[in-house]
Each structure stands twice: as structure tokens, then as C-alpha cells.
């Protein structure tokens, strides 16, 4: 309720700003907030990273388990991607089973990484019955909008630092590693909000509360690898290609942050 009222009030002010080609925080329409990535933020995990995107914060941790492969991919490991919207991160997040928002977030991050084929899942096979399960978990610690991009960056940095666990007789020896996980590329996403016809990169929470449509584009190199449109608004074909160009242009910038 409170969110809706505040959103409605801010939306009017925000629209007045957009007419003047301005945003609340003074950014250009195609500009990211400051990005900061800390490596190895949860040292007990096999790989981890903490991303600050403006005031949004996401902690990603990677653990391994041993399990049975899926019947349709008997020679491949299993990737499980989850996003937790911690109730301490925002008063709009409530404790309980994953909300549709959390599931969508996790699946969009997963889709980018999976469709770009940057992890050789075949290398996670142990024997005919056992494969490594890669648990990629993102914990949203503070929510100020654009969790899609923050989660993808956290996931990518954590994957790049991930150490493969030592496996003996189908069991993981925790604390011992055999080398780094092979990651063959870097996927980034760029998320846009459409408000009254204006297209904004990296929306803040205020902007997200006012937006009509959201679009997330995953990019690797000069190719798009995933897309997800959200909310009930619509996009024109011209707008889609305009955003695709911006996402591709921003990819290099984000890769620099991820590569540190």
C-alpha cells in the first residue's frame, strides 16, 4: 500500500524530470550508477562476489554438491541458479518461499549464463552415476533497483573465481580444490525501464516503481544471449533495436568492472 502511494506521488515528479531530459540522481538516460565489485566476499564458498550497483547490493556464493545427472543430459553437470530476496533488503520483500519476482530474476540470470554456454557442463561429470551440481545463489542484501544487472555481475565474478572441489569416491572433500572452473566468456545484462516513452538504463527503485515496461538484454561479445521483457507496458520494434545497441555498447564497460 505504502509503496503504491509513494510510487504514484513520485511518478508525477519523475515524469516532470524526464520531460526535461533529467533523472533524480542527475544521470544520463544511458548511464549506470557507480559499480563496485568485491571478490571472495564469502570465503567459505567455492566462489563468491559482492556487487554494489548504486545502493543495490548483491552477494553471490557458489557451492558444489554431488548428484545424479538429468536423464536428458546424462554426461553433464547440473547448474542451479537461485535468487533470494532477503527481507532485510527491502520492506517490500517478505519472508517465505521464493516470490514470482525472485524466480524470474533467478531464471533470467540463469538463461544468460546457460545460453551463452560459458561453462562446459561436461567437465562437471564425475562418473556414469554422479555429476557435480553447481549451486549459484544470489542474495540481495539491499534493494535500490535493477537487481537483474547486479545479480548477473555478481554471478559472473563469482564464477570466474570459482575453485573446483576435490572429489574422492563420489564425495566432495570440502576445503580442497583441484583448480579453477573453466569459464569461457563473460555475459552481462543491461536492464532498461520505459517510463512515459523515455528509456532509462539501470533504473533505481523509484524509477522501477514508476515504469510501464522493463527490458533486460543479455550480451556476450557482440551477440545478444538472452532477453526478458517485464510488466504490462509495450515496446516498439524501433525501441527494441535502440536498446539492443545500447546494451551491446555497455557490455564492454561492464566487462571491465567484472574483470577488475
Amino acid at each position, binding site marked *: 500500500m505504502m509503496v503504491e502511494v509513494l510510487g504514484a506521488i513520485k511518478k508525477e515528479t519523475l515524469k516532470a524530470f524526464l520531460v526535461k531530459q533529467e533523472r533524480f540522481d542527475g544521470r544520463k538516460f544511458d548511464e549506470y550508477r557507480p559499480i563496485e565489485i568485491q571478490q571472495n566476499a564469502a570465503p567459505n564458498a567455492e566462489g563468491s562476489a559482492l556487487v554494489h550497483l548504486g545502493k543495490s547490493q548483491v*552477494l553471490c556464493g557458489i557451492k558444489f554438491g554431488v548428484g545424479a545427472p538429468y536423464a536428458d543430459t546424462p554426461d553433464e553437470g547440473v547448474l542451479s541458479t*537461485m535468487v533470494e530476496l*532477503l527481507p532485510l533488503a527491502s520492506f517490500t520483500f517478505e519472508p517465505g518461499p521464493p516470490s514470482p519476482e525472485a524466480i524470474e530474476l533467478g531464471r533470467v540470470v540463469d538463461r544468460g549464463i546457460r545460453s551463452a554456454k560459458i561453462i562446459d557442463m561436461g567437465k562437471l561429470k564425475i562418473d556414469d552415476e554422479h555429476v557435480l551440481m553447481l549451486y549459484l545463489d544470489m542474495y540481495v542484501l539491499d*534493494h535500490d533497483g535493477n537487481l537483474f544487472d547486479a545479480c548477473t555481475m555478481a554471478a559472473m565474478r563469482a564464477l570466474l573465481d570459482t575453485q573446483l572441489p576435490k572429489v574422492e569416491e563420489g564425495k566432495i572433500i570440502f576445503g580442497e580444490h583441484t583448480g579453477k572452473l573453466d569459464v569461457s566468456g563473460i555475459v552481462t545484462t543491461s536492464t532498461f525501464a520505459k517510463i512515459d516513452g523515455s528509456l532509462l538504463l539501470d533504473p533505481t527503485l523509484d524509477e522501477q516503481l514508476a515504469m510501464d515496461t522493463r527490458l533486460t538484454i543479455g550480451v556476450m561479445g557482440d551477440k545478444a544471449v538472452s532477453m526478458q521483457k517485464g510488466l504490462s507496458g509495450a515496446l516498439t520494434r524501433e525501441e527494441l533495436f535502440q536498446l539492443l545497441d545500447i546494451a551491446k555498447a555497455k557490455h564492454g564497460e561492464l566487462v571491465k568492472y567484472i574483470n577488475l
Partner: protein
Amino acid sequence: MMVSSMNQVSETQNPKLLKVDFMAKKKDGLKLIVDGKRLDGRAADQLRPVRIEAHVLNDANGSAYVEWGKNRVLAGVYGPQECIPKHDASPYGALIKCRYTMASFCSLEEHGRSGPNRRSIEISKVMTDAFKSVIFTEYYPKTQIAVFVEVLQSDGGTRCAAINAASVALVDAGIPMRDMVTAVAFAKVDDQIVIDAAKEEDNFGQADVPVAIGANSKEILLLQMDGILSKEEMQQGMEYAYSAAEYLHRLQKDALERVFTTTAQEKKETFLRM
């Protein structure tokens, strides 16, 4: 910056520590205390290094971050706010809802399931009970005060770290309280009473006693124990716990004071420094 009555050991990363084969230890009877020194080099009455930061989150009304040895705990407080579900609301005062959960990647071992389990639900309950007695709940009838604690990394003693973080976060949120709560655990390891058991000591010790103490009242607000202890051992442990709690309370107050004396930039540099 911090006045320390208790000696802190520097966090020496002992690679051997990681590789202690726990099953072998049980069989071979490997000592947890050698020449009066514990596995990580501490004396019996020494705490692991503790760092507390208040007001680390943007949206929560109050928040705190605690690093305690290798434990890392984040607390956020919302409220007083509308009580949900509404039929839970009490006309006599605010409902305190503590929720302790562990991140799936927080431990050195297996990937955990997210969300609460029987252990974390019990911890949430005893935390709630501890805070109920110090918060002026009667000021806010029909509301709730939600205290969320997430364990980002665990190494034995997370419930005490969680309580200390929650206590700072509640003050940071401006919740009126009679007293602050400070928690610390003592343990019996290799027939000796020690303060603040680390993970190995916790797993292979003979007793573990988490205590939460009212900083001013000196009353015991939370007490759990598993293991076997004599009365003398209990007295010794309580001695340690009370003097450790006094020191920890000073760290809590320092953290809250720094909220008003530190710039945003300086704060950012200290949060989650790893």
C-alpha cells in the same frame, strides 16, 4: 578507536586448521588445546577478533553488520510497522518477530537449503524472547517489529553474532529499549572452560553455552546449553562470559557512535571489508 580489555588475537589463517580431518581427529584424539593454546592460538579467555558496524543498509530502518572471527552476520530491522497477518496483532503492544536464517553458501561444507529449518526456527524464537524483555513493546500496540538476521558466513557462534547484530540494528532503527543485549558463548573443550568456541571447538567440545546478557541490568536474557558441566565450570564460564559481554557491549556502542561521526564514503569502505 576501540578500548579493549580483552586481548584479541590477530586472525591468523592457519592452513592446517582447514585440513583437520574431523573423523580422524575423533579416532586419534587430536588435542584441541595444546600447551594452554587453542587451535587458532587463543588463550582460554580470548575472543576472536570482532568488528561491528551499524547502519550498513539503505532501506532497512536499522541495520548492523558483525564480523566475528570468520563469522559474518547482517541484521536489518523494520518497524514498528503494520502487523501481518492482522489477526496476530496485539492491542497490548508490538509483536517482535526475529528471523534468523543462514545463506546457502555460508558453511565450508555442503550447500545448504535456503530458508528456515528446525534449528533456525528455534534460534529465531529464543532471540525473540530475549528482545521482548528489553523493548518497550507497549508503546506500539497492534504493530510488529521485524528483525531479520542473515548469516553470510558461519564458523561457530553465529547465534551470538546474530543477537549482537540485531541489538545494534534495533537501536539504529530508533526502537525504544530498556537495555541493549549482548551475547557470547562459553564452552568446555578438552576439559577446559573457554570463551567463544570456534567451529572445531564447537563440533568436538564437551559443552557449549550461549548466553545473552542485558548490558546494564546484567540479567541473563538467553541461556542455552548442551553438554555436561559441573557447577564450578559453570561459574568459571559465566565469569568469562560477563567480562566478554562487557567488552562486546563497548564495541556495540562504538559502532552506533560511529554512525554519527563517519562519512558515507568512510562507511562504504568499512562495510564487508574482506
